[in-house]
């Protein structure tokens, strides 16, 4: 019996020692809090993913905010406009009709891309709030507040009524569009160290400073954001703020030291030059350099998102737009998807001789890397040669595989990966010229006020002065300049054209100018989010 007692004692000892009820979970593979690498990015010299400073967590989440890839922010801003469409090519790209609905303005609250765009912005906002809660230096705090204000400006633009969350875990009520506008405006003014934008403002008190790092927000970038906010203020609040838009843009143009790229001041080697194709230029010049794979030090860019084939994924225009066989044009690493193409009318809004026409689009017969014609063996019309035509036979269901001019503004490098190297400009000087032009014209009620700036922009595209100059021609000019930069929907709304019919879009429901609050978000909100009117 002694043995038995010993056994029992042993067992009891075993069971009640703490190690036998220890259920602690110490995660080994993933850090328990956000952190920044101690080693700054070596790739920064060539653009890369941007600087590895303390602000990297927020800027890298901003990079993921759908600025230049398929299925989120960029896609809904672009496909809901008259710039481009994603056609259904028989068995390809129907995708439940979501892109057809986007083109025809028949989308609803369950639209996946509308949900993605929402999540992309809020995920970046959460990273901003997290950094701000942890404490930053004055410049860092100002930058992250400006970045957050920019993200809320996007949400205001897309959805109108959103929750303004400014610290982790907050659950404020859904704000009105006016309230979001007020928040965005006050945050930007605050980090600029001013109470109002005017032609005589003094920005010396701003913690943002004037350092020129295209991947970080300086005071010129913040002013650029503010000019966009003011330009669209009438849409958001009913009250026009055009003079302030012009004043903000003007300050950057006059004081920023940025340069509008033309053929003489911006010349770069062409990363997409095929040795065997003589028609490929050795160099890119002017407008083309602002969007090229090597655009990281473009003097026209005030603020951009760093994209890189190796370390900064998120720009996939090559995959999204080009035909499968265009892989062989530049010998891409992988096969493109043949999705997006420009609408014929939009393509035709460029006159011949407009330098931007050739830069922004890819049309005509295509040659492979070695200079031979590219063949498409699946062609059913008997024309095996891959030849992009500006016209598209139909939106659905059997759109031509070769139909539509392809998106080429963000040009390609040889052996490009499916992640592109081009940076995505968020604020650039060319845009600010047009904002100043429009702001002045609308403030004065006279489109002739726009002439100097709009003609500057036209001049670098080798075009003469815009004539006649009126609301419609100005919109068209802005469209040609800003193609593929995700502003067309905004412009159409501001010019009152978003309800107009174009190509296969006839829907004129006014409420479509605001996207619906995504249904999954309403479902998850316990009734704290309500749907926009009309949905």
């Amino acid at each position, binding site marked *: 019996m002694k043995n038995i007692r010993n056994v029992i004692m042993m067992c009891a000892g075993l069971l009640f020692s703490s190690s036998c009820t220890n259920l602690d979970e110490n995660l080994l593979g993933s850090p328990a809090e956000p952190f920044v690498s101690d080693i700054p990015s070596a790739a920064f010299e060539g653009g890369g993913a941007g600087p590895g400073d303390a602000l990297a967590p927020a800027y890298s989440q901003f990079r993921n905010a759908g600025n230049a890839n398929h299925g989120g922010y960029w896609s809904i801003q672009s496909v809901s406009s008259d710039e481009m469409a994603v056609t259904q090519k028989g068995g390809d790209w129907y995708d439940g009709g979501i892109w057809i609905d986007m083109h025809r303005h028949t989308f609803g609250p*369950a639209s996946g891309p509308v949900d993605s765009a929402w999540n992309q912005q809020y995920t970046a906002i959460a990273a901003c709030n997290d950094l701000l809660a942890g404490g930053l230096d004055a410049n860092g705090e100002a930058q992250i507040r400006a970045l957050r204000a920019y993200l809320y400006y996007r949400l205001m633009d897309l959805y109108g009524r959103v929750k303004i969350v400014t610290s982790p875990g907050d659950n404020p009520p859904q704000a009105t569009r006016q309230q979001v506008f007020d928040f965005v405006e006050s945050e930007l003014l605050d980090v600029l160290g001013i109470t109002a934008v005017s032609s005589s403002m003094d920005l010396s008190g701003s913690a943002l400073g004037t350092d020129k790092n295209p991947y970080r927000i300086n005071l010129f970038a913040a002013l650029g954001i503010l000019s966009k906010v003011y330009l669209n203020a009438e849409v958001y609040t009913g009250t026009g703020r055009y003079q302030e838009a012009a004043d903000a843009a003007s300050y950057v143009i006059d004081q920023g030291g940025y340069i509008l790229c033309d053929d003489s001041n911006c010349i770069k080697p062409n990363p997409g030059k095929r040795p065997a194709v003589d028609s490929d230029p050795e160099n890119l010049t002017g407008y083309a350099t602002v969007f090229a794979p090597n655009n990281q030090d473009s003097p026209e860019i005030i603020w951009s998102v760093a994209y890189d084939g190796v370390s900064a994924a998120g720009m996939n225009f090559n995959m999204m737009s080009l035909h499968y066989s265009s892989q062989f044009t530049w010998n891409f690493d992988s096969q493109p998807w043949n999705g997006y193409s420009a609408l014929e009318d939009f393509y035709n809004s460029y006159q011949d001789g407009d330098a931007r026409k050739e830069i922004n689009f890819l049309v005509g017969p295509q040659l492979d890397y070695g200079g031979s014609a590219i063949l498409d063996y699946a062609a059913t019309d008997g024309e095996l040669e891959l030849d992009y035509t500006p016209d598209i036979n139909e939106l659905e269901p059997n759109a*031509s595989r070769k139909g539509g001019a392809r998106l080429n503004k963000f040009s390609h490098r040889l052996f490009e990966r499916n992640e592109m190297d081009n940076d995505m400009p968020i604020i650039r000087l060319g845009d600010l010229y047009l904002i100043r032009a429009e702001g002045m014209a609308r403030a004065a009620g006279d489109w002739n006020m726009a002439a100097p700036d709009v003609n500057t922009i036209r001049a670098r595209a080798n075009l003469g002065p815009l004539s006649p100059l009126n609301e419609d021609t100005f919109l068209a000019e802005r469209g040609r300049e800003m193609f593929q930069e995700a502003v067309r929907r905004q412009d159409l709304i501001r010019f009152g054209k978003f309800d107009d019919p174009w190509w296969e879009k006839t829907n004129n429901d006014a409420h479509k100018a605001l996207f619906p609050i995504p249904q999954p978000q309403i479902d998850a909100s316990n009734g704290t989010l309500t749907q926009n009117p009309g949905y």
Partner: protein
Amino acid sequence: MKIKLLKSLVVIGAFLCFGFIQAQEVTGTVSDVNGPLPGASVLVKGTTTGTQTDFDGNFTLNADSDATLVFSYIGFLTQEIAVNGQSTINVVLQEDAQALEEVVVVGYGSQAKKEITSAVTSVGEEEFNKGVVNDPASLLQGKVAGLSIYNKGGNPNEDPVVRLRGISTIGANSEPLVIVDGVVGASLNNVDPNDIASINVLKDGSAAAIYGTRGSSGVILVTTKTGGAGGTSVDYNGQFSLASPARLLPVMSGDEFAAAGGVDLGSRTDWLDLVTITAATKINNVAVSGGDGNSNFRVSANFREAQGILYNSGFKQYNTRANFSTRTFNDKLRIDFDASYTKRNSNFSFTEGLRYGLLYNPTAPVLGADSPFQFDSETYGGYFETLGLFDSFNPVSIVQQGTNQGSKDEFTYSANFKYNLTDAWDLTALFSQQSSKILNSGYAPTTLLYLGNASSPTRKGLAQLYTEERNFKLFELYTSYNTSIGESTNLSLTGGYSWQQQNQFDYFLSAGGFPNNKLQYLNALEWSTDLDNAGFANYGSNNWPNDRIIAFFGRASATINNAIFVNASLRREGSSRFGEGNKWGLFPSVGVGVDLNQYLELNNVNLFKVRLGYGVTGALPPTFGLSQPQYQDDGSRLSAVPSLEPNPDLKWEEKAETNLGIEFATNRFSGTLDLYTRDVSDFILLATIETSQSVTGANQQYQNAGKLQTKGLELSLNYDVVKQDNLSYNTGLNFTTYKSTLKEFITPQEMRANLGSPGQNSTEMIRVKVGEEIGQIWGPVFTGEVVDGSQVLADVNGDGTLNTGQDQALAEDGDFAILGNGIPDFELGWSNQLTIGRFDVNAFFRGAFGHSLVNTFRAFYEPRVGSQGSYNFVNTKYADPSITNAQFSSLYVEKADFFKLDNLTIGYNFDIGENKYIKGVRLNVSGQNLFTITGYTGADPEPQLVDIGENTGGAFNALGSDPLAPGIDRRNNYFSARTYAVGLNINF
């Protein structure tokens, strides 16, 4: 199932003095009241000397004159007779009433079958599925009411999906808990089907609750074979089989394709024929077993070499198992030691070979040399490729050039010590360890377009490696005590502690850009030009935290008047996967059974029992770390970004189940009926959260997301139609039906299961809705009319507008409808056993009825899409040549009811007379999957209980699976095979 309880021998303090004892020959006959007993064990007590009686019950052995002989036989009381100089000893053994009563292994012990108050089904070796069975679960396919086992297509490298009573959990692991010889959570892959003596399935919550958290999806208890007392015997089993594709999806021939307007590339190629083979499987098993009264052993070696019907797929497996058991310390201590090792080398090949085998242009040549236009064959290893087409690859090139293989080592051992403190009180300690290693490697050579990127001028070839090492430790300590209260009540108490820990380390790497195909990729990773080009090489590693489960448990069983049985158990269990404060859960159960026949005393009725059980089980979250914030690389190595919003409040998913069972048996007929209802509350699911409220910014989080209710009925019937010495026929039927309803959910409804690329992304096909059944296939309805190449869809709600865009799927004015349900209405298994003299015939039929499948092959490739003219077209009876674009609708959802002859086996036991060396020889031939009656046009009408997702991506096997989205027959499913086998069994 019967377990022979080893009767211990009492050692008497007699010391043998060899000098005086004379060895002599003893002969005799062992019989029972009916006549001689062949195969009875005769043993000289205290030695390993022994023999077995022959066919006529006779024995001969040498024994010392003062020795004692021990006579034993299963089901009879053991007798001891002193030799005392006798040369002839004849014995009549008495039946052991207790031993004849079936004993069933339940959690932490065993019980007499009649004492069980929960739904437990036992399947013995003789009832297992016959023919070629490469995994233990398939032994049970169709045999247990309520247990669904489907290996859709029958890929030999994939484990079947096992579901007990439908969906028991959603986010958590829905595979049943496996216990091998008492080792909780053991790997079923480390047990060869030939080594299994019996399998018990604990179906309801009251049986499984003793296993707490992991019992929700049911418990499968595997008992492996052990050695018997009396001499050594050798058992050999050999099997050879040939399998060929049983059903293939109809596609067009080259001529039909050209006539239908497809691009004619000049050749006529039957691609499916080229990527499939007649697959041979060889199985050899040898087992040696033996023992005496104190110890016994069994050692087996199993060799399997299986080919799949897909070219170059299959595996070679070697498994060995040793079971050893002994008693010591005056028989007070019993030690059981089991060890098993399995090594499997697999060739996965590429299931894409089957997919492209169906779809590749039937007019395309195999080789580039036969190309109708100038083609650079050398770049593609001599094969032809249709360059520039989306998702189009020469399947012969894939399966012949590509390599996709893996090896897996599994080692398990367990040591079980049971010490009898008193006759009524014992203490058991179990320690077990399992380790497994996986090394998967794949290589797409520089000349392979698929994965290998052969068309790239710079980076051709891709090598991928994945390796995983997993360790599992289990320690359990429990004690049992038996007592009587008064004269009529027996009470049995069990209590204990359980501790287990799982660790895993894994890493993968992929690298491409090889100079040529002259190198063996596993030996030449250093040649990868990815070393010179940042960003191409891909690697990652993952090390688990100590993943622990700790539990305290107890059970009380009472038997009153040998007619009323009461069982109650309680388990308090904790897991490291939950946050502080939510780690521990409490899982109770109670059951009552009444043997009504004790009171009714019905004539000719052996059993008439009614039982009622209630039990609560839990379910673990699918992975660890869910309660803590986790961050991952932002892709630029600059900063860490959130990967998942943590949920520190995540708590145990609980399943409460009530089961009513009726068991009835006469001499010839037996039946069991079970009715159950189960409520799974707080089920764990990866849920969308309001992104603005996410602290990390991640928009998904594991949550206790809802409540699911399943109601079901299971019926098993068995009848001995003929029961004579030379002729017997037994038939058995089991019937299963259940319905699962979503009772509560985080959102009122949502869509799941994307159809996929090309062209049908954002096309989710399954609706999950509160108040509705699980498994609803939801989509637009085809009217039968086609206009301009498009299906005309129905205005389902009749409001005059057609809203069939996918984002309208759940909208009030959307024109969507239920197109079918992925879960069968009912499932049937019908077994037949006929014995005529030395012949025996087994026929097993199986069917599932009422379920539908989305035939995704058709959804993608049946429309005559002009712009994809280089794909072949699926050409079933539903094919409508006027449809020229792809749109998911009711047209692609088919009823998939089926009834099949799963297995037919004919065996013959040779009359070998009195052979000195061979005790028995049996030969059998079998056919599997011999015919299937179904209207389904796809390759396999078996239900698809979980969604395996869009695509495997080629290199390695598929990722997660979604139990909320059953009913989707994906393009990467294997094609089912028909198998003919011949088997030989020799017993020495």
